[in-house]
């Protein structure tokens, strides 16, 4: 009976997610912190939205591995982001560049808000 239980529970232990996941080991906690903040700031190229941290697509796995390797090799955050966008395009960056139609994205909400405020105060005076 005991033996059966042992075998039964060993299934649970052996199927723990740790056996299945890539484990990243860092030299210090700063590197680790940078890693986790970077992978949440790089967009998964295979997903509609979502970072590579939230994705298990093969390309996201490759990207995470690359970010990890680059951190260990001493690259800065900015260098890593450039490295990724050189290959996967500006799409990989969550912060859209300040150019062209993106001005609407960046300043549209403020224009909209000020317009609303103007209308609101004009309306109150009437």
């Amino acid at each position, binding site marked *: 009976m005991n033996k059966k239980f042992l075998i039964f529970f060993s299934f649970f232990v052996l199927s723990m997610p740790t056996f299945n996941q890539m484990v990243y080991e860092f030299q210090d906690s700063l590197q680790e912190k940078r890693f986790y903040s970077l992978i949440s700031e790089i967009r998964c*190229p*295979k997903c509609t939205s979502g970072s590579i941290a939230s994705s298990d*697509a*093969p*390309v996201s796995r*490759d990207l995470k591995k*690359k970010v990890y390797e680059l951190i260990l090799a001493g690259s800065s955050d900015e260098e890593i982001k450039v490295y990724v966008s*050189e*290959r*996967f*395009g500006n*799409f990989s960056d969550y912060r859209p560049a300040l150019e062209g139609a993106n001005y*609407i994205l960046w300043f549209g909400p403020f224009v909209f808000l000020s*317009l609303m405020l103007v*209308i609101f105060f*004009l*309306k109150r005076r*009437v």
Partner: protein
Amino acid sequence: MNQFLRFSILLLPILILLFFGKVLLVDEDTKFKNFESKSFPEFQLNDLNGNPVKAKSLDGLKLVNVWASWCITCLVEHPFLTQLSDKNIQIIGLNYKDSDTKAIAWLQKHGNPYLFSIYDPRGDLAFDLGVTGAPESYLILDNQVIAHTQGEMNQAKWDNIFLPLIKKARQRS
């Protein structure tokens, strides 16, 4: 003043509708059309037969197609690629995260539209190219990547994205 207010309140939903209309009804190929050309990454890989691939083989106008024997959509686009190669479009395969024996067997079974296939089992060259999965296609002009599509290559994508660039390139030369 009151009239202006009424007018602007009416105008607002129209503007919002226009904005979302523009964002949502955007042509799906637009993101492929806005591709910024870049040079083809350097690599040291063999073809499927084990011969080293020379950078010179990417001179001229070439279609680089990312494929694998495990990739189902590659099988879907395969007849179209065969048509292209029959029309003298030079296609180079990039065999992506595959095993060479399986890849060779796949080509024997379904036909080989490629001049040769670069064997990239770890996906190193694919990563530098910005491949997100198979199939994807790249248009190469003298070692420069000038266009990129993801997913199945078909007549519509070909006519819409690659053909105008090919015509332009042929006019110049």
